[in-house]
């Protein structure tokens, strides 16, 4: 067993086990803890998948930001000492059954595909466009720069034979998502702040 495989199994076990623990735990704070473990393990898997920038983003935004926000929410809305979510055994049983079935379907499908031979071959050999863009992320794992370039709309990693980019640049979503974040910020600030009432609005269409 190679070191990479060993690390994969370690992090995969942590990710799956913690995810399961999130479902099985009744206490919200412990759920948050297990969620952190799971998301952290996923970040490690990102590092294993040679996506170091993404792994760091996952740690910074998800684990360090979103989960802190969630825990903050738990603390602000806790009525009792520790918020317990009671799940009846019947619900748990039903959830386990449906979830198990879903997992079975997904797993059997995913494991049934021979990616290297069937899909990659079919797509790689026969599709002109796919062939041109047949550059998986380079193995150095230094994806920060290509990602940054893709965000400003340049794709040096996917250049066709004629020198034109075969994959889209992501300038538009990169810019427009900032508008979205601004709007979300306005909305969240509105909902969270106390109502300031100066005077009732009486004048319409003034």
């Amino acid at each position, binding site marked *: 067993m190679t070191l990479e495989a060993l690390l994969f199994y370690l992090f995969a076990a942590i990710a799956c086990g913690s995810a399961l623990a999130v479902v099985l735990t009744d206490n919200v704070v412990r759920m948050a803890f297990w969620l952190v473990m799971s998301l952290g393990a996923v970040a490690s898997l990102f590092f294993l998948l040679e996506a170091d920038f993404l792994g760091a983003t996952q740690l910074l935004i998800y684990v360090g930001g979103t989960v802190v926000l969630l825990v903050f929410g738990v603390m602000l809305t806790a009525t009792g000492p520790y918020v317990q979510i009671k799940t009846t055994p019947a619900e748990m049983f039903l959830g386990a059954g449906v979830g198990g079935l879903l997992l079975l*379907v*997904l797993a*059997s*499908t*995913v494991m*049934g*595909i021979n990616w290297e031979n*069937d*899909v990659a071959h*079919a*797509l790689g050999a*026969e*599709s002109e*466009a*796919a062939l041109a*863009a047949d550059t998986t992320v380079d193995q150095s794992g230094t994806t920060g720069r290509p990602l940054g370039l893709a965000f*400003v*709309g*340049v794709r*040096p990693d996917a250049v066709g034979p004629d020198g034109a*980019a075969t994959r*889209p*640049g*992501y*300038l*538009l*979503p990169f810019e*427009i*998502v900032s*508008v*979205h974040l*601004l*709007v*979300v910020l*306005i*909305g*969240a*600030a*509105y*909902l969270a702040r106390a*109502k*300031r*009432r*100066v*005077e*009732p*609005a009486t004048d*319409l*269409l*003034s």
Partner: protein
Amino acid sequence: MFSTLLNQILSDSTGQPFGSLQLFGPELTLSAGIVLMLLARLCGIDRRLPTHWIALWMTFIAFSLGVFQFVEFSRSDLGTVEYFSGLMVFDRFSALFRLGLLLFLIFTITLTVISGIPDRDDAPDFYSLLMGASVGMLLMGGANHLLMLFLGVEMSSVPSYAMVGFLKGRKASSEAALKFVVYGAGAAGVMLYGISLIAGLLGTAEFPQIAIQLQTLFAGESAALSNPAIRLLMLGILMLLVGFAFKLSVVPFHFWTPDVFQGASAEVGGFLSVASKSAAFVLLVRTVLAFVTPASSADLGQIYLTLGLGIGVIAAITATFGNLAAYSQTNMKRLLAYSTIAHSGYMLMAIAALIVLRAGLEPGSTGYDDRCARAVEGLLYYLAVYFFMNLGAFAITALIRNETFSEEIEDYAGLGFQAPILAIGMGMCLFSLVGLPPLGGFVGKLFIFAAVYDSGFVHPLMWGILAIGGLNTVFSLFYYIRVMKTMYLQERPATARALRVPAWSYSGAFVLILTLPLLLPLGTAVQLVSGVAKRAAMSLFAGL
């Protein structure tokens, strides 16, 4: 490298007369409007100049830009233009949708000004959310990439969550918002998982590439369900459809709709009911056309046919459920919510017809393209009518609420004589929603049913769905009539608040402007509107 990029963005580099930024003008104007409102509040300008003027003017500028583009584009005789390096697509279809949405935004802002739902302090927040959601919907209208699809859905839903909870002191409002955000986030998550499966399997996320990849991937092999790759594709598509079903409140993902519409103010309800639904339908059409291509293998066609029929059955169930559940409602907004579900069902029938028609084709042929175009045309026409009748119904509900402080149907007793303009307007909207002959809704239903009838030649099950759709129209008559009955045949209690909404007030004029177009189908307007819709629909099909 960067200079070509700049060229692409600013002007033409591929010989096209439209640069990316130019095509993106309306969205940029709306975004600028959001920033302007923020700055206005920062500098205290909103004390002197009410925020709704900024919102209204920026939307109007965006609308003018949209009209300009539409005219220019129609004149240039171009089929489709991909912009922002293929992430977005511009054709008559998206141009028309953009016009409709911006016009709707103008109407909604006017309505909020008349009904005064965001007060002066909260107006910048409300209009920012409204315009932010609209930018997302505009993105949905032109999405040509799975990322843009998800981004558009998120950008339009997340501000909507906040808008539903906008009356934050109200218990019902905050409860509606919580339910909406929790279920909405879940549906978006499932949708994203589906997107990840599809993108990974096909190795691309661009809509035009998806068809090519599907063809190459399943060219040599059997594309029956025993092939795990097909199963994975179908799982992905189903999960994608879950996201759509949630946005469209299709059974069994409709459960949030009544609660959310009841908890939110009627203005927001109207926005969600019309704008969000139409954006989702437009996006669904694009997605369907990307996946279901006549060029796919015969096996795949068979699977798609089953999928289309399944969607048809679900559409029939949705319409029936919406109409049946509306019977027992006592709250007007809740009734309109169930009516929205029912109408989603009708419009989904057009989508089902589109899929069935496309899937029934022999690989490589384009024989049914005109009929497919007719299904899309029907959907567009229906959306145009739906715009007026549903917004009208919600607007009148809001106006009545402003006078009587109630949204219960029983409190509408005797309104017919006290506020005739509101009652007549409501009557026209409701009868149009039923689809009674002289009104716009009738023509819309006719177009959709015609498309469903066409698809019956591919598979007779569609005729059964058509029959259910027709029956539903009859069902729905009764609960809409109940509202009218309360308004006209019941005496207004002496203790009830009196209404004073004359026809020459702002409210009266607004109602008139909204409801008069519903009468237009009497004349040549049908041909005019359906002509525009037809050209827009045909621009989607390369064969025409």
